[in-house]
């Protein structure tokens, strides 16, 4: 697959949308959504002011989120960008290992006690395996555990999860950005899968163009 830079519309690239195609015309009817989905991608993965979160941390989280969605096309993009960022082979292998051990299916979780408790659905609270923790380091370990909750069981969110991130060195502003990375990817992945399906393309295979 091609590895688009941040100046190439990443959703178009991952869906395989070419100029003049029917899907390009459909996206052109919602021009702000198209432009600002791309602007969000740039803000989160090629920010003008990266603050305390490194490019490698952003891309490692991106590869993990896309991998947890089993979204091959999108995961390939973030894994490729992580490799380009100079991430070590050990870090890339740790991201892959975390993805493999953390996969499940959602959404699950608990509601506040009351009439909705009958809809409570059990599932795992992911803790990064001991073999991977030292490679990821404390910041990414805490991030991955939080990310797994956001991806698969967001209704289990609680202040203690944010405290764990603060304890691992994520500031309040860092947590906002981390949350946006996971939440935005939850959108981007679904747009890519949805539009590929609409175009009659398998949603999880590599882009061949």
């Amino acid at each position, binding site marked *: 697959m091609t590895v688009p830079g941040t100046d190439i519309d990443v959703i178009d690239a991952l869906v395989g949308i070419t100029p003049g195609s029917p899907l390009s015309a459909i996206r052109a009817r919602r021009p702000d959504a198209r432009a600002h989905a791309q602007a969000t991608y740039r803000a989160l993965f090629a920010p003008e002011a990266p603050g305390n979160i490194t490019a490698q941390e952003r891309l490692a989280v991106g590869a993990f989120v896309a991998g947890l969605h089993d979204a091959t096309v999108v995961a390939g993009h973030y894994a490729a960008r992580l490799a380009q960022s100079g991430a070590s082979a050990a870090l890339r292998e740790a991201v892959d290992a975390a993805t493999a051990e953390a996969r499940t299916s959602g959404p699950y979780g608990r509601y506040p006690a009351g009439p909705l408790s009958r809809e409570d659905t059990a599932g795992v609270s992911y803790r990064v395996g001991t073999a991977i923790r030292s490679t990821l380091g404390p910041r990414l370990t805490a991030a991955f555990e939080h990310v797994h909750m956001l991806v698969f069981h967001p209704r289990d969110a609680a*202040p203690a999860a944010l405290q764990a991130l603060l304890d691992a060195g994520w500031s309040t502003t860092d*947590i906002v950005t981390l949350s946006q990375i996971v939440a935005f990817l939850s959108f981007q992945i679904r747009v890519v899968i949805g539009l590929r399906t609409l175009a009659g393309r398998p949603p999880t295979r590599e882009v061949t163009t």
Partner: protein
Amino acid sequence: MTDTVLVPPEHTAPTAFTRAQLDWLPWLEPLAVEAMTARHMASLVDAARVKSPYFRLLARDPDALEARTRTDKDIFYNPDAGLPRAERELAAAATSRFNGCLYCASVHARHAATYSKREADVQRLLDTGVSADLGERWNAIVAASVALTATPCVFGPEHVDRLRRSGLDDLAIADVIHAAAFFNWANRLMLSLGEPAAPAD
């Protein structure tokens, strides 16, 4: 490290999905209004949002917030054909119901009911859940939103076919996809950075 998790004031947590107006209480410190730069203010897009602790918290990453908001507005408010506004809101409400975001579900169920005038159907979605029978066209929109919201996604050609049989053209189907996808973004922020509160009596 002086950043801390906030303890919300005494409040009543809602325990059921509702179309009533809810409050939202942050678990992390929003920017103080007097500390906000011109860039922070511009990232709100609507100046009135300075009153919202949710948007002042997200304004800590102003580029991400502004792009998020402009994406949101085009998906839901662009009047150029495609899916009627009521059904974009239905997709948002169904996604929020399935993920379990009481706050987002309250706002978008309210909008869906307002624009469709089908209060009873919207309330049935909230009360019964995403398996509620709302008539074939709405059932198709809810089923597509839910399939796309599952992680991993289980959205497939059968969902597209069902939407087409319900009279949606490809632009309208793309609107369903974007509305459901966007609420997978919004739900995760709303659920994880604070909590809903029932309004004080």
